[in-house]
């Protein structure tokens, strides 16, 4: 404590402690997953700068995949070294936690990102532009849509290989986000992963205006929510005189009083704590897409390039819920009776709104967006449980859900017509007759979303609802089951549409993907089924990883 506190005094009490500034002590090995990813991102920028255009694609793909795999190996090594359990602690002077939930979530994020990168690198779906294979991203992001510069870029066969370093930066931020052990690190991590995502959203090759609109909306609203979050951080600092999670928690529980005479007037003022806590919560709820902070989700999911949507829907949610869990379980457990009812309300509204509004959607990407909102509600039900089972069930759900989502969006990239992806649901009619394999795969994902047994969706939903019921949130479970019933309607409707409707004359075709997207989809199906049929091993794993370090 004394050591960590003195370092924090470096940030928070600079006024009266200038005489000794000890060199910060950084455990590089324990931070290696993040460092590898961020290092590779920097390398990627150098690749963009110095390698010739024709080799960049191969180099970037390789670099990204290797970096993500290496980072995952580092996570596994740390977990095997006991950092998930016995040796869990706060590294980097108390700024980053290395514990079970952090490692579990980082591992999930890395695996999901690796699979997502497969879809980023896919170059077989879009017809070749002037003899050169192209991916889902704009030829030149800076070119005005429909303008001369764009035509030139397309003609020259440019592709935006910058997406790979951007993804790596985003992943780097996401790795820190659920591990952040003080509010400033949390904020920095949030911005680090958000900014590349804004850019990525704007980079669609087809329907560029829609893509740019979505990016601007996402950016504006994201900035808006960041402001709330930052304001909340300030208020919490005013309350506790520190930004570390453990420090705030100590003040909340009435343990330690006071550090700074200048803050004597505000320290321990519960109004600051409650308002600040609510604002920080709001920032996180925005990222996970909970009602009423969800409105960006459908527009952004629809406009963004589909591989980015899949990545965002899967990885951002994992990171966001990780941070939310840590905040609620480490900083605010003493306030449980204050935030629980509020979170109950948020969870209920999120489940119902997501499920109900999805019923009338006609675009498959928007449908999946609302589905993701409903699922955020289900996960919140597990978060609210405030038991160790609640944590592990949420961890399991996140792992299961992210692969289903990624798989579903990968399938969406395959169904195409002349204008690019055919996302209007009417065009999916009869898909099962013409492309039974693709439709069946999508059906598997839809059934998993609906929570049908033998899919991971069922195991996850069951774990979450069970934890919620045991944590005394029975009404939440009832609303959850009702919402699931409503949600089942629109999932099954798509299956009916695909298999029991007559195909349209001018219907879309299913593109034959390269091994990259194929393997992404195959991994999605495999994980969905394995976690559905034999979830116990992974539930146990999540159970072991369910304790936060303080």
């Amino acid at each position, binding site marked *: 404590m004394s050591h960590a506190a003195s370092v924090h005094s470096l940030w928070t009490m600079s006024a009266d402690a200038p005489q000794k500034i000890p060199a910060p002590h950084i455990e590089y090995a324990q931070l290696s997953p993040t460092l590898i990813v961020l290092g590779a991102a920097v390398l990627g920028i150098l690749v963009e700068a110095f390698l010739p255009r024709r080799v960049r694609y191969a180099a970037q793909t390789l670099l990204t995949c290797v970096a993500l795999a290496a980072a995952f190996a580092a996570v596994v090594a740390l977990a095997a070294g006991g950092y998930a359990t016995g040796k869990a602690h706060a590294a980097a002077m108390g700024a980053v936690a290395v514990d079970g939930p952090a490692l579990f979530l980082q591992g999930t994020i890395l695996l999901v990102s690796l699979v997502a990168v497969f879809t980023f690198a896919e170059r077989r779906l879009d017809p070749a532009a002037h003899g050169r294979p192209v991916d889902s991203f704009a030829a030149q992001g800076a070119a005005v849509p429909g303008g001369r510069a764009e035509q030139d870029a397309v003609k020259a066969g440019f592709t935006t290989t910058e997406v790979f370093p951007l993804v790596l930066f985003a992943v780097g931020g996401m790795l820190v986000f659920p591990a952040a052990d003080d509010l400033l690190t949390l904020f920095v991590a949030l911005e680090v992963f958000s900014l590349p995502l804004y850019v990525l959203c704007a980079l669609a090759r087809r329907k560029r205006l829609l893509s740019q609109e979505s990016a*601007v*909306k996402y950016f*504006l*609203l994201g900035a*808006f*929510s960041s402001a*709330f979050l930052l304001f909340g951080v300030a208020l919490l600092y005013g309350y506790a005189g520190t930004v570390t999670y453990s420090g705030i928690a100590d003040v909340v529980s009435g343990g330690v009083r006071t550090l700074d005479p200048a803050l004597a007037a505000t320290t321990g003022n*519960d*109004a600051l704590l*409650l*308002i600040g*806590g*609510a*604002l920080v*919560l*709001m920032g996180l709820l*925005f990222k996970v897409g909970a*009602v*009423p*902070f969800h*409105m*960006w989700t*459908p*527009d952004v999911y629809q406009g963004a390039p589909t591989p980015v949507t899949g990545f965002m829907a899967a990885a951002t949610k994992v990171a966001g819920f990780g941070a939310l869990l840590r905040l609620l379980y480490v900083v605010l457990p003493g306030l449980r*009776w*204050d*935030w629980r*009812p*509020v979170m109950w*309300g*948020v969870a209920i509204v999120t489940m119902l*709104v997501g499920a*109900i*509004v*999805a*019923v*009338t*959607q006609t675009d498959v990407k928007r449908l999946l967006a609302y589905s993701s909102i409903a699922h955020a509600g289900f996960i919140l039900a597990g978060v609210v449980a405030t038991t160790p089972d609640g944590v592990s069930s949420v961890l399991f759900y996140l792992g299961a859900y992210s692969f289903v989502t990624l798989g579903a969006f990968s399938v969406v990239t395959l169904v195409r017509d002349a204008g690019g992806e055919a996302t209007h649901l009417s065009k999916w009619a009869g898909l099962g007759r013409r492309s039974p394999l693709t439709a069946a795969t999508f059906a598997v994902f839809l059934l998993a979303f609906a929570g049908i047994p033998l899919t991971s969706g069922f195991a996850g939903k069951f774990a979450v609802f069970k934890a919620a019921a045991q944590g005394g949130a029975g009404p939440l479970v009832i609303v959850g089951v009702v919402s699931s019933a*409503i949600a089942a*309607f629109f999932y099954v409707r798509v299956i009916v549409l695909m298999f029991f409707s007559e195909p349209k004359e001018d219907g879309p075709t299913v593109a034959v993907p390269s091994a990259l997207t194929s393997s992404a989809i195959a991994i999605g199906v495999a994980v969905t089924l394995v976690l559905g049929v034999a979830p116990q091993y992974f539930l146990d794993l999540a159970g072991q990883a369910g304790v936060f370090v303080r």
Partner: protein
Amino acid sequence: MENLIGLLVLAPLLGAGVLLCGGRRLDRSGPWLGTLLAAVSFALGVVLFADMLGKGGEERALDVTVFQWVPVGGFRADVGFHLDQLSMTFVLLITGVGSLIHLYSVGYMAHDERKRRFFGYLNLFLAAMLLLVLADNYLLLYVGWEGVGLASYLLIGFWQHKPSAATAAKKAFLVNRVGDMGLSIAIMLLFTTFGTFAFDPVLDRATDAGEGKLTAIALMLLLAACGKSAQVPLQSWLGDAMEGPTPVSALIHAATMVTAGVYLITRSGAVFDAAPDAQTAVVTVGAVTLLFGAIVGCAKDDIKKALAGSTMSQIGYMILAAGLGPVGYVFAIMHLVTHGFFKAGLFLGAGSVMHGMNDEVDMRRYGGLRKYMPVTFVTFGLGYLAIIGFPGLSGFFSKDKIIEAAFAKGGTEGWILGGAALLGAAITAYYMTRVMLLTFFGEKRWQPDANGELPHPHESPRTMTIPMVVLAFGSVFAGGLFSINDTFLKWLEPVTGHEEGHSPVSALTVTAATMLVLVIGVAIAWAQYGRRPVPVTAPRGSLLTRAARRDLLQDDFNHVVLVRGGEHLTRSLVYVDHTLVDGVVNGTAASVGGLSGRMRKLQNGYARSYAVSMFGGAAVLIAATLLMRAV
């Protein structure tokens, strides 16, 4: 030895599988294969029987657990067999008569295109029936119970191109469902009461349970028995079941399956003994049915339906005896076995007659057949003498004992039951004599068939006559064999127990009375059908005759009370489903859809609106948090 029990069931089951899945290649050899497997089963039964005879009375039971069937937590249900003297009796009857009827069917069904399937079903029936009588627990018994029901359904409707056969099969199936429901409820009650399905613990501890509960169980078992054994009030299906091929009527609807109810009651004897009210219900059902069936049998002109009425009546005797408790169990089973012989023989004889008469079933169009079909005449005649209880033949011994036991019930009850049994014996003598006279004696009343051809009656082929001859031997000698030195009583007593009844009238008196009513019955029939020529079209007849021709209005009753009532109930349920349930469901769906459409409009695409919603949300979040603290 234990392993042979499994094989006993497996052989016909294998036959059913091979014949039903084997395809056309087996069309020629199939019938013989089915017959062979039935015979194998019979041979195994004989081996086991010989082995059993070598042991003392109390050590004869064999138990074998084949595999764990439903292991769930602390609960277990096994596939296990229990072979004791009672099940041994059934095994020999089922496989013995079964083999004979398989053999008969080879001749009878020779010209049927789908005979392979027919033998497959017959084998399936044998397997299920053996499972029923060999099971060592109620759950497995239920499997056999449903299995014979299925086989019966398939075989009644075997000539499904005839609408009457299809309807009859459906009717049998539906009526049996009612009984089966009783059995399943009984099994559930047994499980909740005793925590197990196995016979031994249930029957050993039967008296531990309260009498009310036991009565409920016993009544449900009785309901099951009524369904399977065609007893009042679930008797209506048996007459129509005669739409099936005649060997089926002989095997399933006379000798074996329909006696399953008697087996069930005898097997569950301990439960019934501890529930006297239920026993009263059993004897009532038995007495009513034995008269009901006999009266119906008097009025029918269709030879098979007349015999079906007789079957119903004879099973009524058995149920009556079983309801008397330990006094009657042995005699119920003894009558069951002798009845198995003579009734199967009678049905096979009827089949033989139909075979020779272009499938004509109306006895008023028979007449004088004794010269044309001598073997059939003699075997049928012996069966006839056996069933009416001619002294020295099988029926005489077994029926006499039941009448005696009925009187031994004592008090008014005893007089009523004994009187009913005696009256039944008189009517039996009457209607069986009528069948005999109409068919084999008198003028030829043959009529041209649908193609305008007069029948040319001829004796049936060997495959058909041999079984008839063998069964005739059984009809003649079985009763005597069982009764000399009380052989059958001593054989079965270790399982069912036995008490000597104390009849208010002496055994000699009962026998004398039985002889007297027999003579009266035969005499009336002779006066009506032997002395005068018989009209080819039936006269209008008295009110009772007309009612009896309509099966004593059972179908009309069922139609008015059950069908109409059921239709009204269904209609009102459909109405409730359409308006209330569907209304709620569709209303919910519609309101969700409507809500969805309205909420969707909030998503207007303007970032400013989204920001406002976030701002509002944040305000609510903060307000709610503060409010929580304030509260």
